[in-house]
């Protein structure tokens, strides 16, 4: 990631200058310890030779796995502050088919010294950070198991192609272990041991206007399936939403007939135009194609559509199965469909609407916005097609994609709940895609904070703080000087000007600016000239008086 530090010289006009009052110095970047529990020859210790890939310089499969783990941990380390090392007990091992890996906290703690909320569980790594001590020194903090049977991309550069990027997967799963998950039972609604946790205390059911700890067990079970109506209302996430999520929340609504009118839960596609570009209001028409080798049914859309005249300008309804999503959408596009709905087939009858990946070939030919629907919803539509079904596939421009009207981030609350991954993830309708959605989307970067993502902001809301070596409230990784001069007055070469040393709004102080000018100047005359320029700007901006300007310039002139 390119450095985002800014030159202190460029900050002189900032009107945000304030008297600098440093906060207590923080503990510094959290130290992550990867505890390799693999036996010799296995997992992290696999000696199979491997060619370096994507910045991963390991020469064996085991080394590359460990380097990827360490890299993911270092990304979190740079953004989280703790005096207590975070121990991840990790292994690569043969897991069951279909299981890529897992990570989670080993313990939770409540009512520890310095706990922000009493009677509230915290994941152990977070509890340790808040307590300032290791509450369970004999145990590790996060348990991580990943599969040796799956072909991950082990590079560090994110150029994973069609493979799953291990670093992204690790960033996601580590976040669960660090505190991005809740502990109430989704089956019974019961709070863990009768106590809420740091995460679900900030879950708000907007239909009821209540936070999760205020709900009864039965209400929590119901809330977990209230699609679009459960939000995380931490102030950091809410403040960052406008910088991350785009305006225009996608919607799929049936306008008529009245019996099935209303909004529908849907999935989005990684190909074709974005929903709302353009918004479509049209009739839904069942796509028909030949039952052939490409697809055995006349509803699967795997071949060229045979009812193109009826489809043109309308919303094509296609059944999932046999061929890829992008193939179906391409065939519907070629028939002139204005939009495409792909609904779950029998094999996925109870599942939530899927997110639809591109196959790298057909997506480029899709010209119609494409969404997916639950099978039950689609069959209700199919049953009334003879009388005409009119629908909108568009966006609500008053909302950001993945947030509510107050910019509170939606958490994933699909119906039915077994559709997957409820509550401990962001909603899949978020745009841009977020690290902590239930699926690992291929367009994710390794950035975990705004304007790229909202994961770090959530962890901050539940109690994590950022490394801030100089205590100026600017995180080190975006502080224009993480080791600012924080003396109360401007002192140059041991001479005190008596002028208050103000902060300039991006993590730099006036003294930082003057010292940077000294370092940049090729000779004394250049330095004096730069100081004159800087202090004139400060005076113009009202940050210092004429007398203070003179004091700084005179002091600078004596620094030879």
């Amino acid at each position, binding site marked *: 990631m390119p450095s985002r530090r800014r030159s202190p010289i460029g900050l002189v006009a900032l009107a945000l200058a304030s008297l600098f009052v440093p906060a207590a110095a923080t503990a510094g970047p959290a130290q992550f310890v990867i*505890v390799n*529990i693999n036996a010799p020859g296995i997992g992290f210790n696999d000696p199979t030779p491997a060619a370096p890939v994507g910045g991963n310089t390991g020469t064996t499969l085991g080394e590359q796995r460990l380097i990827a783990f360490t890299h993911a941990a270092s990304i979190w380390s740079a953004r989280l502050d703790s005096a207590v090392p975070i121990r991840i*007990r990790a292994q690569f091992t043969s*897991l*069951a*088919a*279909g*299981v*890529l*890996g897992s*990570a*989670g906290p*080993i*313990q*939770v*703690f409540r*009512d*520890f*010294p310095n706990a922000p909320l009493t009677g509230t569980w915290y994941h*152990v790594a977070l509890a340790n950070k808040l307590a300032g001590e290791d*509450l*369970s020194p*004999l*145990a*590790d903090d996060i*348990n991580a198991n990943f599969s040796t049977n*799956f072909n991950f991309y082990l590079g560090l550069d994110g150029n994973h192609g*069609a493979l799953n990027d291990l670093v992204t997967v690790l960033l*996601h*799963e580590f976040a*669960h*272990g660090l505190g991005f*998950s809740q*502990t109430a*039972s*989704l*089956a019974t609604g019961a709070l*863990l*041991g009768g106590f809420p946790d740091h995460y679900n205390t900030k879950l708000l059911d907007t239909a009821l206007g209540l936070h999760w700890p205020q709900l009864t067990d039965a209400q929590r079970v119901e809330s977990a399936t209230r699609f679009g109506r459960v939000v995380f209302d931490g102030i950091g996430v809410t403040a960052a939403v406008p910088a991350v999520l785009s305006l225009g929340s996608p919607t799929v609504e049936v306008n008529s007939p009245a019996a099935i009118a209303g909004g529908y839960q849907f999935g989005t596609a990684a190909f074709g135009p974005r929903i709302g570009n353009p918004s479509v209001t049209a009739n839904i028409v069942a796509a028909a194609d030949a039952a052939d080798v490409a697809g055995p049914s006349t509803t699967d859309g795997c071949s060229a559509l045979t009812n193109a005249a009826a489809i043109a300008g309308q919303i094509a309804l296609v059944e*999932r199965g*046999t061929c*890829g*999503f992008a193939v179906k959408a391409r065939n519907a596009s070629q028939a002139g469909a204005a939009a495409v709905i792909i609904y779950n087939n029998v*094999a*996925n009858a109870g*599942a939530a609407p*899927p*997110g639809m*990946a591109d*196959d790298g070939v057909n997506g480029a030919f899709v010209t119609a916005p494409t969404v997916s629907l639950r099978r039950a919803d689609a069959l209700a539509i199919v049953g009334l097609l003879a009388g005409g079904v009119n629908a909108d596939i568009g966006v609500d421009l008053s909302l950001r994609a993945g947030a509510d009207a107050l910019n509170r981030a939606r958490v994933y609350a699909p119906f039915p*709940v*077994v*559709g997957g*991954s*409820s509550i*401990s*993830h962001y909603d899949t309708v978020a745009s841009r895609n977020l690290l902590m959605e*239930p*699926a*690992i989307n291929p367009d994710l970067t390794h950035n975990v904070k705004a304007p790229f993502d909202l994961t770090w902001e959530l962890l901050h809301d539940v109690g994590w703080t950022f490394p801030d070596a100089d205590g100026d409230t600017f995180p080190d990784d975006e502080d224009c000087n993480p080791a600012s001069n924080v003396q109360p007055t401007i002192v140059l070469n041991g001479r005190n000007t008596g002028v208050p040393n103000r902060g300039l709004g991006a993590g730099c102080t006036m003294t930082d600016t003057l010292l940077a000018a000294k370092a940049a100047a090729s000779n004394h005359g250049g330095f004096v000239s730069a100081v004159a320029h800087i202090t004139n700007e400060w005076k113009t901006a009202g940050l210092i008086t004429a007398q203070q300007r003179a004091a700084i310039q005179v002091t600078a002139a004596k620094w030879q």
Partner: protein
Amino acid sequence: MSRQRVLATLAAIAVAIAALAGPAGAAPKKFKATRAFVVDKETGALRLPTPAEVDAVVTTLTSLGQQPAETLTSTTTATGAVGMDLGGGFAGVLLARPSEDGTWETRCVFTVEEGADFLGLVEDVQ
């Protein structure tokens, strides 16, 4: 790893195994597969998982997902802090299944039911 950490690890595994066994007398749910998500090592082709492979998936999801609170133990430290060992569970479990076009669809789940649904496992009532 220190001997103490080994003991702590073994204790966690023991709790997980106890949780896997479920409440006394309760028969664990049996599942069967409805979709192919296993890449056959011999042929490289997708196939339905065998009953043993289905059982392995369910066992994994059961041990890693949410645990019944009554199977978990808590302890109180000298400072009054209360800790609860999660028994190896409460993890996010990342699953993958093949899409029709050969790409892999992933999903992070927290419960057996979520995972079974994603992988197309249905309860075997016979």
